[in-house]
């Protein structure tokens, strides 16, 4: 009973203040600088309680930009593994969705969903900050559903 209360509290807090982990997976930097721009004064997602963190163990939402290649595929899988449940993955930009303009290049595996499950797809080359924020908001809804599912399962 007491544990349930704490669990509820934690899950509400995580939902209200989601922490992001951003991983550049072979992007041209276009989407990365737009993702970073979201955190700076003009777009400022920090006012919604969104914090960018460097440690996957602190994160709730994984933002991935860029194409997956043969080497970063493993890094991506490890990062995904290290994020505690429940977690949501947002793929950003044409490259993250399908490989984009690079999909035929020799060292490219394809979109992020070839390696880890993706919940939200944000299109654009590069994706605009507004689109990325919208993607994060959508991800929050998914996050809520997932944490509910987890609670009921217990």
């Amino acid at each position, binding site marked *: 009973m007491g544990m349930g209360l704490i669990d509820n509290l934690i899950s509400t807090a995580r939902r209200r203040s989601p922490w992001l982990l951003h991983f550049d997976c072979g992007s041209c930097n276009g989407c990365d600088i737009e993702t970073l721009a979201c955190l700076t004064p003009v777009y400022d997602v920090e006012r919604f309680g969104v914090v960018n963190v460097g440690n996957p163990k602190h994160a709730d939402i994984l933002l991935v930009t860029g194409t997956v290649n*043969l080497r970063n595929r493993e890094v991506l899988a490890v990062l995904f593994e290290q994020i505690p449940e429940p977690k949501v993955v947002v793929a950003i930009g044409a490259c993250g969705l399908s490989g984009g303009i690079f999909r*035929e290049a*020799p*060292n490219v595996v394809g979109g992020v969903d070839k390696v880890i499950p993706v919940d939200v797809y944000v299109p654009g080359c590069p994706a605009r900050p507004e689109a990325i924020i919208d993607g994060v908001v959508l991800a929050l809804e998914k996050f809520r559903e997932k944490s509910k599912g987890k609670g009921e399962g217990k």
Partner: protein
Amino acid sequence: MTITADRIESGELCRAVAALKEQGCRFVTITCVRADSAGAELLYHFDRELSLSHLRLTVSGDEVPSICGIYASAFLVENEIQDQFGLRFIGLTPDYQRTLYLQGEDSAPPFRGPSGPDRGE
């Protein structure tokens, strides 16, 4: 239009590069062009006071002497060519053993073999 470059043999490469270094040239990069499936052409670019000079070396086999001993910064580009074209640079340090970009056993050098639109998949 072609680039005017001094043609050299692989035996005299290091001497020619060292001579350019004596003149105060900055090493810019090496470009590798695969001539056909058997050979490759290496273009060494040097810069001095904003003007470029080039050395052209035709490689018939797979082995090329490394110029790392003269310009240490060449290690990056030589490793890249090893990766992408399957050539081997003798005396290269540090040698990434064709794993600079590629995952070793997973991948063959992508530029090996003839180029052209029919190469595709």
